[in-house]
């Protein structure tokens, strides 16, 4: 079995947020959009950057980390979806069928990571002009799961760059950030500090699987029992 996942080394992370930008461009996630969208907390980030300052001056620490979808092994969003628009695919990814979603937003309420976003307003096609990723990804039953611009009124989220991975599978090229010429997610590829590893967590030889077993490794909100497939390496 394949189980795609990410390991993000927070010791290497410089908080440059290049992963956030790369994700936007790769997946046709329109720019944060009008100021109104940001003010009303309606901007979409498949990969969102969180930072938190702890302590009081001069005893301060900065906790900063990017948050893609966790692709949980036990995803709370999947069980609450009334129409099976969101599901766990055989490669361990949590996907959304954009053309089946009814827009009830129960999954957004259930997701503890806030990784799911709703298209509150109509997509702005102009914002993508000239840099639209033309890839369209459909699952085995023909439902739209890939990065084509999502319609108004549905929920969307990170797919672990499914269009890249599936294309590599078809071409027979290597997949994983530790392989030479290996296909990886846009966030992993763009990270200037090589802080993000993408690979198969079920393949014990992959870099991602090895790092996930590291003693610095932890997962977000582990106490909830969601068992994310995105690991972090604590700052040591």
């Amino acid at each position: 079995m394949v189980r795609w996942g990410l390991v993000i080394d927070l010791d290497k992370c410089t908080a440059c947020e290049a992963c956030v930008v790369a994700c936007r461009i790769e997946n046709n996630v329109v720019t944060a959009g009008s100021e109104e969208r940001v003010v009303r907390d309606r901007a979409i980030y498949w990969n969102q950057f969180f930072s938190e300052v702890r302590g009081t001056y001069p005893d301060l620490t900065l906790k900063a980390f990017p948050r893609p979808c966790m692709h949980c092994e036990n995803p709370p969003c999947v069980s609450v979806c009334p129409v099976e628009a969101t599901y766990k695919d055989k490669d361990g990814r949590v996907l959304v069928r954009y053309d089946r979603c009814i827009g009830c937003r129960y999954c957004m309420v259930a997701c503890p990571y806030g990784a799911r976003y709703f298209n509150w307003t109509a997509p702005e096609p102009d914002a993508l002009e000239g840099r639209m990723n033309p890839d369209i990804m459909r699952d085995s039953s023909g439902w739209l799961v890939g990065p084509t611009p999502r319609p108004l009124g549905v929920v969307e989220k990170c797919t672990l760059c499914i269009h890249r991975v599936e294309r590599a599978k078809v071409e027979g090229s290597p997949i994983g950030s530790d392989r030479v010429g290996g296909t990886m997610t846009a966030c992993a590829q763009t990270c200037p500090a090589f802080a993000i590893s993408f690979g198969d967590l079920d393949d014990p030889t992959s870099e991602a699987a090895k790092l996930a077993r590291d003693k610095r490794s932890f997962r977000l909100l582990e106490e909830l029992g969601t068992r994310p497939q995105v690991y972090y390496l604590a700052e040591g």
Partner: protein
Amino acid sequence: METKEVAPPRRRTDWPFLGIVVLASAALAVAAFLRWTELQEGVDAGTSNRVAWGLLVVNYVTFIGLSAGGVIIASLVHILNIKRFKSIATFAELLAVISIVLVPVFIFFDLGRPERAVNLLLYGRIESPLVWTVIVLTTYLAVCLAYLYYGVRRELVSMSKAPGRLQWLYRWMTLGNQDVSPAALARDERVVRRISFFVLPLAVVLHSVTGLIFAVVSAKPGYNTALMPPLFVISAIISGIALVALVIVVAGKRVRLPVEPGVVEELGRILAMLLPILAYLLLMEWTVVFYGTEPAERGVWTFITSGAYAPLFWGLLLCGFIVPLAILVPQRTRTRKGVGVASALIVIGVFLERYLIVEAPLLFPNLPGTVRAAVPTVGEILLVLGVYALGVLLLALATKLFPVGEAYKRLNGAEKPPPGQSLPSHDPGKSDAT
């Protein structure tokens, strides 16, 4: 025997009726237009990525709850055998049906892709509490409609035989069953009684499932408590009874409901007995939360009691508990008017409770972030008012087309000559005097 059935007269079309219909239609049209624009351009509401559910979901939950009134009245009549409530049983059931009919409207106004709602049937996922709700709500609506049908069938038959332009409508609504022999009527009576036994557990399931929509979200402090389903059941019963009492006091005379004397006061007494149970459940929840040290749980309730939602919370205590109890407990103030006022306050109070329960936990992120209260927009409020207007419209039309209390009046009057004539004690003009 059928030829002797006298069709009950319909209410005349007067100015207040026309005014209500025109106003309600206008509000509904505004809401429909807003919704249509929303489907083209996007949702204008206080909702955001974090607070994904807004005023429409609060109303959806509230109206499922309000439908409990009809069931409780039916149970009082048939299970506890309190005959007096029979005078309002059909009317209460009508209110229940209207409340349930509004629920899908709220959902359609809220869904991002309402045209895909059919996916609920095509691809329904049984693990989802929303699918449980769809199943239970549909069953519940069907059962309530059956109750209503058997309750008014005799009237429909007599109206379909009386001369008038709407004969076809009444004939159509009898569903072809025109038999009004004593045996058939006795059977109707029996069916109604059996349904009322079945509908009570069904109502408990419905309101529990509504509570479960929230309770199963294990990552949300404030949602994830086993107290949620019982809290929803008791809130539903209280708000449902309060709605019935309120509508009877406000519109009972207009729709010529044959309310038996003392019925409204009795409803007030039942409310006074039930309110402490709701207060008790909330008190237990707070005791556990504030005794404990779980920061997330405390955070939600501290925010509710002293944060941006504090006015709503204290409003709920005052409106939902203290003032209604002060009115309903002393017999001196438990008059028709008093019960009306208390019921209005209780409906508002339960709405505030729903609002706090649904909205406050959503404000709190599990990952780092600041808490900011979501405020409904004007557009959102207009949508909600539009659906309320639809409810008023349905009630106005239903009570105009179908004289709601006639069946009861006739049944009781039939034993005494002359048939079809109401007894003095059933004269709405007298029993409704305040």
